[in-house]
């Protein structure tokens, strides 16, 4: 009997301790409590859990996150759980979820160690910061900001992300399984890149340290070089 009773007594004690700290209805009535359905995969603060392939969402621009929620809902991106969770909510509520995760300021992981040769890294640096005018590939920084930490409200940063994540996303744009609002500039860019360019630019991005100020730029320094449907009209030039 004794060994059986012990856990029950312990549990009883636990529940007492817990009920003392039981949150009130007002304490529960928060957006953080509402998005707990997201935490098994994206982590409590959107940092992403270590298991599997769950992207970080913390600190990405709110407009970007919102666009992704809508993309899952409308079938431009595919992950059944994401569609299931976003499908029957008001746009206002999706926006509120997006703003919540956008406001999380969490440390980024240290940069990856280079695992490719210097020539490839250099090719990556050129693509990311200068582009390749001959092949009409604009520099990533032209849209993702000179610090590559993104631009408000809807262009995400490219630093602090693992290279396999970057490659996977660009790859799904090439194959059409990830789409953004039309005109889908990222799909166009991903298709203009050779496979090796992709590996190069992802490798270079992944070994860059994240700057001290991790927030996205508040606005574009120059007009983006292409039209992107996910960037609001008033922040870019007419087609």
């Amino acid at each position: 009997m004794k060994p059986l009773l012990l856990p029950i007594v312990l549990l009883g004690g636990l529940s007492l301790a817990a009920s003392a700290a039981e949150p009130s209805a007002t304490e529960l009535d928060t957006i953080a409590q509402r998005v707990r359905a997201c935490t098994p995969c994206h982590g409590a603060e959107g940092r992403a859990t270590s298991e599997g392939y769950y992207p970080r969402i913390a600190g990405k621009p709110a407009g970007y996150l919102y666009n992704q929620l809508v993309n899952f809902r409308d079938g431009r991106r595919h992950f059944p759980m994401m569609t299931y969770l976003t499908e029957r909510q008001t746009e206002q509520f999706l926006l509120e979820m997006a703003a919540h995760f956008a406001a999380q300021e969490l440390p980024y992981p240290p940069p990856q160690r280079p695992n490719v040769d210097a020539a490839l890294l250099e090719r990556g640096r050129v693509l990311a910061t200068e582009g390749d005018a001959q092949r009409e590939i604009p520099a990533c920084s032209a849209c993702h900001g000179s610090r590559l930490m993104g631009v408000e409200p809807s262009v995400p940063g490219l630093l602090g992300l693992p290279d396999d994540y970057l490659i996977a996303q660009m790859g799904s744009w090439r194959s059409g399984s990830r789409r953004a609002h039309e005109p889908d500039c990222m799909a166009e860019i991903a298709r203009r890149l050779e496979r090796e360019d992709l590996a190069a630019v992802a490798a270079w991005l992944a070994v860059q340290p994240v700057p001290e100020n991790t927030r996205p730029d508040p606005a574009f320094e120059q007009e983006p070089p292409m039209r992107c449907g996910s960037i609001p009209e008033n922040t870019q030039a007419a087609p």
Partner: protein
Amino acid sequence: MKRRIVLAVIALAILALVLLSRLRVEDRTGGEAPPPLFADTANEVERGRALVLLADCGPCHTARGGEPFAGGRAIPTPFGTFVTPNITPDPETGIGNWTSDDFWRALHEGRSRDGRLLYPTFPYTNYTKISRRDADAMFAYLRTLKPVRRENRPHELRFPYDQRWLLAAWRALFFRPGVYEPDPERSAEWNRGAYLVQGVAHCSACHEARNALGAIQSSDNPAGGLVLDWYAPSLTRAREAGVQHWSEEDIVTFLRTGRTQSAPHASALGPMAEVVYESLQHVHPGELHAMAVYLKSLPVDGAPPDAGAGFASAPLTGSLARGREIYMEHCADCHGERGEGRLPAAIPLAGNRAVCMDSVANPIRIVLYGGYPPGTEGSPRPFGMPPFYPTLRNDQIASVLNYVRTGCGADVPRVTADEVERNRGGPLW
């Protein structure tokens, strides 16, 4: 295999009957529906719009991210995948060339313009109760939609379900066209409610159990695949979805917002969340009230689970003890230590019908895949249930559900790890 033979035999045996029934004079006048009890009904298109909304035609006939009513939504079922057709007024790919007679025949008799028999995944078994006048209004509204050019894709059904002619047998057995006939003994409101529940809103397409010869239908989900792997509980059982013991207000609140605000606690999840989100929340509260009056009058079996019972507190051993540990670690901070709920964040589980009904499909799916009740005008920021498929094993989910089901105040079938396994994968909703 057996099913195939049964089907073939029925088909032959019934053929004569069917041929006879073809000779029957077609009903083109179509009865008088109980009129709506509120607002202006003079504008035919407006009335049609409201009916189409309540009948939920749009979501079924719209692909994800696609043009409204242009079809293309895939409906996976045990018989294969149905792909809904284009019902915009496009003359070539939609129903632009249809007359109101053609439309009436589809809704009332389940036949296409060219005479093809239609699969009852299109719930004409309910829509047949719709009056001719209402069908004409719906058609008038559909004609105002933007025509969209989109070719229909063929269904991908398994043999023998891909044999359309077999529907003749099924229909002869199970389908009688007939407009709703008001019951003069009952109030106008009750009749309106019955017309909507049985006909336009087709609640029974999901909620009514069918017999095993449902032929092209699964045994308990006659809407074909739309209910997918969910169990649509019975509206005539107090332990399931019967609302006879609810107040009319609670019923209207549930149908309109997807959640009740106080006891009796319920939330709409899975396919029911879609019905509330796409259709019921937009419906005039007067119509919902009429439905509530009718639903309360349905015959009822049994009593609801005892909400005060709470979870088992006697010393627990084995799997139930493990279930309690899992509950305390993963569920208690939202649903409360004794399953009493932590409102507004999560509803009680002790005595909750969604947990207590005999069928364990829904509780398993909810723990595996979580989800939000629908975001509606009356409940625009719902709380969500996290999915546990990434973190809990099948046996852990079975244990925690068996522990939670000790709060049902009666003997309920045990959940097994195998059943949890069967619910992994497949379409989510």
